[in-house]
């Protein structure tokens, strides 16, 4: 399982998708439309990376977006992207920290 179990168990994480950098789905948790979500996440990562390069910010590590109800956090895990969809969006900062912590632990 590529989605960190700690994240999968969180009640605030409604669904999660692991995709490759090209937008192909690798794994989906509680997400029926894993393929389309993976494609959007992959494309979003590439556009944000492009903007970051233009701004001289280096490589992209973490991306998140929030609305009034839900939020999403995307992080790199090796050659993959892990996206977690969070509700309520106020829980996004804590899920962000847990996700990056879990992924760093995995890589170490």
């Amino acid at each position, binding site marked *: 399982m590529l989605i960190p179990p700690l994240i999968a168990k969180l009640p*605030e994480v409604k669904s999660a998708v692991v995709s490759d950098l090209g937008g192909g789905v690798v794994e989906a948790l509680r997400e029926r439309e894993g393929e389309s*979500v993976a494609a*959007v*996440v992959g*494309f*979003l990562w590439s*556009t*944000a990376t*492009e*903007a*970051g390069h*233009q*701004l*001289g*910010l*280096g*490589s*992209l*590590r*973490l*991306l*998140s*977006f*929030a*609305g*009034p*109800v*839900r939020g*999403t956090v995307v992080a790199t895990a090796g050659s993959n992207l892990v996206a977690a969809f969070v509700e*309520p969006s*106020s*829980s996004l*900062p*804590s899920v962000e*920290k847990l996700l990056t912590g879990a992924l760093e632990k995995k890589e170490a």
Partner: protein
Amino acid sequence: MEQILQGLLDLPGVSAAIVFDATGALVASCGRALYDRPLCEQVSGALTKAVDTVRLQQEEWESINALFADGKFLLQNLAPSSARGHVLAVVADSTLNASFATVAIRVATNRLRKSIAGGTSEPGAGSSLGRPSASGATAPSAVSTHPPASGSQPLPSDSKVLANSGVSWSKSSSVGLSRVAVANPASAAFLSRCAKQLARHVGPIAKVYVEESVRRVSPDAPFSLAAANPLVNDLAAQIEDPDDRAEFCKALENP
């Protein structure tokens, strides 16, 4: 508008502040050294693509944060969350103080919304509408229908439904955001207690969190003690440590 962006640029760590419209056209920008107008124009296009992609996944968005090896950018929606409109982008290096920046960006967002809506008395705000801005761009007039942000809406005239809940909620707060509608003085006092308790765990941003939380749990009516439990639960989500979270909830058990 440039004055508001300049205020953001004064924050330690901020390299550039940019406003672009839904088409990716630069509306105004303010940046240090390398972040000149051509770069800001170029990056506005890439950022618009990113915003449009986020909208595919989540139509209603308020903010986008991207963390890079050598810095970050933060995007804030200046339109009502489901509409396409202007976006504020703040580019920063790793020295940015996240708590300060969060508050400063929210204040700037409210002022920019007012400026875009054209109904403001703030000095400098709105001055770029209908004529070229200092950066040479012209703000389109089609955006003038945006309502002001909730934090900047005028207070209802009925003073019975409004009360200041003490220091944290006074009109003279330096944060400039700290006014919410409350049903009675007891509710106001409870909000102050919430802010004080939360501040023990998250610091000075607590007031902003409480204000946002009140808007979430009591969006259509002045806050009353009937909504105390949902408010406490909502605020508890801001505290990472489970023990601290439990302590916070316990301290506010009896509204």
